């Protein structure tokens, strides 16, 4: 039930992001979801792509520092209170969210929220127990 994510280290300078996107475009890799976290002098670009292996290879060939890690994708109806229903469960189960990012599914009916929990397995269990749809990686990569 885990989704693989690849993170790329970026210096905060013009052209940094452009270099990453060029690598992906040249390798014909499609971005499913992304989030850019930054501080005053560096950034971390987190990506979910359709072909993780090729992406990692392409980044390494270009000298990027990358890391693969696991996140959780939750599908919820796209309506007011949807996100809140998840945070309520996480609070009850005392699960800490390191970061999250979200996008709306193509059909427009559902939203998908990507979570990075401090304890990923406990997070997945809590969501499943409460009837949430946790998407398997394969499904997210092919969205």
């Amino acid at each position, binding site marked *: 039930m885990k989704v693989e994510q690849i993170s790329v280290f970026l210096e905060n300078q013009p052209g940094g992001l452009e270099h990453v996107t060029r690598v992906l475009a040249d390798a014909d890799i499609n971005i499913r979801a992304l989030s850019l976290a930054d501080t005053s002098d560096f950034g971390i670009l987190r990506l979910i792509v359709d072909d993780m292996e090729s992406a990692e290879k392409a980044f390494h060939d270009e000298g990027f*520092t990358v890391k693969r*890690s696991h996140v959780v994708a939750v599908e919820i109806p796209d309506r007011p209170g949807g996100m809140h229903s998840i945070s309520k469960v996480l609070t009850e189960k005392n699960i800490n969210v390191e970061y999250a990012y979200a996008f709306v599914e193509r059909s427009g009916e559902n939203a998908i929220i990507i979570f990075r929990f401090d304890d990923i397995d406990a997070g997945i269990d809590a969501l499943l127990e409460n009837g949430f749809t946790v998407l398997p990686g394969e499904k997210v990569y092919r969205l």
Partner: protein
Amino acid sequence: MIFNEEFETLPREALEALQLKRLQQVTGRVYHTVGFYKRAFDEAGVTPDDIKTLDDIRRLPFTTKQDLRDNYPFGLFAVPMSNIVRLHASSGTTGKPTVVGYTRRDIEIWSRLMARSFVAAGLTSNDIIHNAYGYGLFTGGLGAHYGTEMLGASVIPMSGGSTKKQIMILQDFGPTAICCTPSYALYLAERGEAMGVDMRSLKLRVGILGAEPWSEKMRQEIEGRLGITALDIYGLSEIMGPGVAMECAEGRDGLHVFEDHFIVETINPETGENVPYGEEGELVFTSLTKEAFPLIRYRTKDISRLMKEPCRCGRTHVRMARVSGRSDDMLIIRGVNVFPSQIESVLLGIEGLGPHYELIVDREGNLDTLEIRVEMSEDVFSDEIKTLQKIERRITKDIKDYLGVTAKVKLVGAGSLERSEGKTQKVIDKREI
């Protein structure tokens, strides 16, 4: 005014005769009491009896910082520990400091040379000296302290830091002179001005500034903002501490090396050959009267030139120009010696970090700044910001703990720092001094 008129104005001939006599004594003493010198002299094929003229000093081997490290901590002491009354230490590249010792007489001579320095700066027993050099292993604080007491002036033992309090004391105690690094003098001016204090109207009239390289431009700025006469003092713990050489208020052109206690030479740092007066070279000192820790031809790595022309102040001692640089890669940041190799070992001490870094030294306002750019490695990289910030904080803390300087750490992409086949340019010094 001259503190020790007899010795500071000795005719050259008499001064050189005194130097020769003392050089013969000190070489004889170290040859027979310090194993290191016996071996070094024997290897160079020279004995103390070969010293017949002052020029014969050139036959003696050099002593280097590495020799001091190899004999850490007390291996070069020429007297038993029971005769040592004080120890000081300076920073070294490996994290181990170099240790120096003093007998009671060494401390007295040092105090007298500091008193000479103060008098050369125009101070008398009526002055109050605000001593903002750090007290501790560093020789600056206690050296200036004892010199003030020797002169009979009043010392305020401030030490470094607590800038607000320093400004309060400058206002309330009314010191007439200050001892500190040039950059700290400017920092005090800045902070005082920001606090709304008219720094020019203080009773301060003289600054005895040293322990880091500075320039004529910086002198003018200090003098303008503090309304003082700023003079350069030189020294290094290995030789004694501050008070090896001092600029006189009358001449303000070079620092008189107190030649009755030290022989100064300038050499080509590459070949070790002596260079003529007036030409730039590495300063080499021999201490003539030190009992506990005499040094023979110690290579300072400081670049300067010597001036033999008579000075208007009447002192006959040779002058050295303001130190213009270092022959090695040592950086002096806010008065603290920093070697790139020290930073490298701190980085390598943190698991997962590589040895690729770049140091950027600059001056913001009037304080030296150090930025360390460290290449990211996949071993420490994370998808979480807080993990990377933790690494930055860890580097900053370790640098502070081991080297005593505050650095700004910036993580950069792997492979982004310039590399070349030969020597990597690891230091970018943007300071204009």
